[in-house]
């Protein structure tokens, strides 16, 4: 199966193009967009870990190591498309247009955090594993029924492919030929369980064979490979040629969450040889004349300012409103729920 699904790369670990035909396709604008977004989400991610350590936000699941997968895939979408992320995909949602302040708020336990900006179809991060996969199929199905060219993108990890909802979502997509892209980030571990204990299958891409669905295995740390393969899948979906499964082979550099200690289950030094996706892009930029110190330092400064401002805005947000506990359970709440609300709010006032 590894031979049938070779890991597709556009550049090697040292940032050299393997396929020179890509040289023309990779223009300065794409390179800078890629670098900016990858650096931006890494800065966000590292900041979030620090904030958690300082007790300023709740438990946080870092995505460091997966920046190329998340940015490369998210950049292939356009407004009108739908994104169904997991809790580890804030790099993708931020790239697609989620608000950074709200993203911090989400990790601070705030419901406001899942509300996307107007016109951005970003579903709340799925915390149960794989449940978002049939959602993406259903929403894409609706787009097909409406006759649009919008598509839906579902993110999920390697562990999710063991869940029933992965198979149910892919099967529905295959049967109804929905415009869905199933983007798997195979980061090696589902919390502590390594891929070889998760499945006896040699690849995740091969699971699409069961559904007669096109699939591809890509180097998830190669932002260009992710972007161009994603673009192919997105175009196929827009043209009405149905769903695609993409397996992006990547690596979770850090812990599952800030509450997790990977030294308990990961052998010493495992993954150290993997070149970080951002370092790889940096080497590419230097190799191909895209490295501009001035632009890099401006970009870094801009991102740092943005992240600092977002943290400040998150911390200056008014407190969560206790009425929000009650107000959105139903469009119109039943009487007994309104009574619970009135009694509780009156009690709060009295305190």
């Amino acid at each position: 199966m590894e031979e049938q699904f070779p890991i597709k790369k556009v550049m090697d670990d040292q940032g050299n193009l393997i396929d020179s035909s890509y040289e023309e396709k990779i223009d300065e604008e794409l390179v800078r967009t890629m670098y900016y977004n990858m650096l931006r989400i890494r800065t966000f991610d590292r900041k979030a870990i620090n904030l958690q350590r300082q007790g300023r936000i709740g438990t946080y699941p870092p995505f460091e190591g997966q920046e190329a997968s998340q940015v490369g895939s998210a950049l292939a979408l356009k407004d009108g498309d739908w994104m169904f992320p997991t809790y580890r995909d804030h790099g993708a949602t931020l790239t697609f247009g989620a608000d950074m302040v709200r993203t911090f708020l989400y990790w601070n336990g705030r419901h406001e955090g899942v509300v996307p900006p107007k016109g951005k179809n970003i579903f709340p991060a799925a915390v149960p594993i794989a449940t978002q996969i049939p959602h993406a199929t259903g929403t894409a199905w609706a787009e097909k029924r409406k006759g649009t060219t919008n598509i839906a993108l579902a993110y999920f990890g390697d562990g999710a492919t063991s869940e029933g909802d992965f198979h149910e979502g892919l099967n529905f997509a295959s049967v109804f030929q929905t415009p869905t892209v199933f983007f798997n980030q195979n980061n090696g571990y589902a919390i502590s369980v390594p891929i070889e204990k998760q499945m006896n299958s040699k690849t995740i891409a091969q699971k699409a064979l069961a559904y007669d669905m096109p699939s591809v295995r890509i180097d998830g740390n190669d932002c260009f490979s992710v972007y161009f393969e994603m673009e192919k899948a997105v175009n196929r979906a827009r043209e009405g040629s149905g769903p695609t499964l993409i397996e992006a082979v990547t690596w979770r550099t850090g812990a599952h969450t800030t509450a997790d200690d990977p030294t308990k289950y990961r052998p010493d030094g495992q993954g150290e040889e993997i070149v970080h996706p951002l370092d790889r892009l940096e080497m590419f930029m230097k190799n191909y004349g895209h490295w501009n110190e001035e632009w890099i330092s401006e970009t870094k400064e801009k991102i740092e300012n943005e992240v600092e401002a977002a943290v400040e805005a998150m911390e200056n947000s008014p407190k969560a409103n206790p009425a929000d506990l009650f107000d959105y359970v139903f469009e119109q709440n039943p009487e007994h729920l309104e009574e619970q609300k009135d009694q509780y709010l009156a009690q709060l006032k009295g305190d």
Partner: protein
Amino acid sequence: MDLKVEQKPEVNSKTKQMTMIQAINDGLKTMLELDEKTILLGEDIGKNGGVFRATEGLQEVFGEDRVVDTPLSESGIVGTSVGLAVNGFKPVAEMQFMGFIYPAYDQIMTHVSRLRMKTLGHYSAPMVIRAPYGAGIRAPEIHSDSAEALFTHMPGVKVVCPATPYDAKGLLIESIEDPDPVIFMEPMRSYRAKREDVPEGKYNVEIGKGNKVQEGTDITLIAWGAMVPVAEQAAKQAEEQGVSCEVIDLRTLYPLDRELIAESVQKTGRAVIVHEAHGTGGLGNDILSVINDTSFLYLRSPIERVTGFDVPVPFFSLEDHYLPTAKRVLESIYKSVNF
């Protein structure tokens, strides 16, 4: 409040004698005609017209895109319905039997019920999940569960359970028009038990309102779905012994019609709650709480509950022993009035 037995609203259309299953079919057809966003999903509901024929003939009229034969995949049906619902469609999903809803429980619990609340109203997943429930038709195992309490315990979904053809159609239409998700339980034992006049075209029966099906003064019997005829039968037998029973058909299990329960129990001072599901953790306990909260000082005897036993719903050779019967209800009536 006027406590007269509810008069059915005047509907400016002809009526037709229908069984409950025909009324459900007619309700689905009505909404498919009126709202192009309505889409039916389920196993065997298209060409086959559903294992109970609830969707008979609908695919022929409305096509495969609107009456969809789905893969055998309950979580897939509800999961894709979430995606359809947030993107403008109104899915009406059929679970072939309520006992097969469990693979979809995760989707209902973790997404359908809480999407509106968790997004502060930005997204919601209004849909109707139809599920034939209950024992008494000699079905194979798992086909006979009454799982309402799993869903009345789930904030964010409404739970509806009609007992008559008229209510089945009116409540189904109301459920499809409701802006929130509704679990629509259909007592399969009552599917073809009786016919009654059902108006053609669209009419609504309000969610959250029970129905007093019989006036009485000595004791209130509270039931829903397939237990309503059982309660009525017990009431008739009690009447012959001089006990006047008021019979309430709750029709909606979440939210409960607290007002109707309270008014009736305050009048009679006694109550027997009848349900097919297991007693422990059953909805009867919530009804008991409503009575406790609203009518404690009116009570003349402890409230009785007649429910399915705390055992798994058995194979059908034992189901008549499992199910509450008029005889058991009658015993509780006497126990209560002779307290």
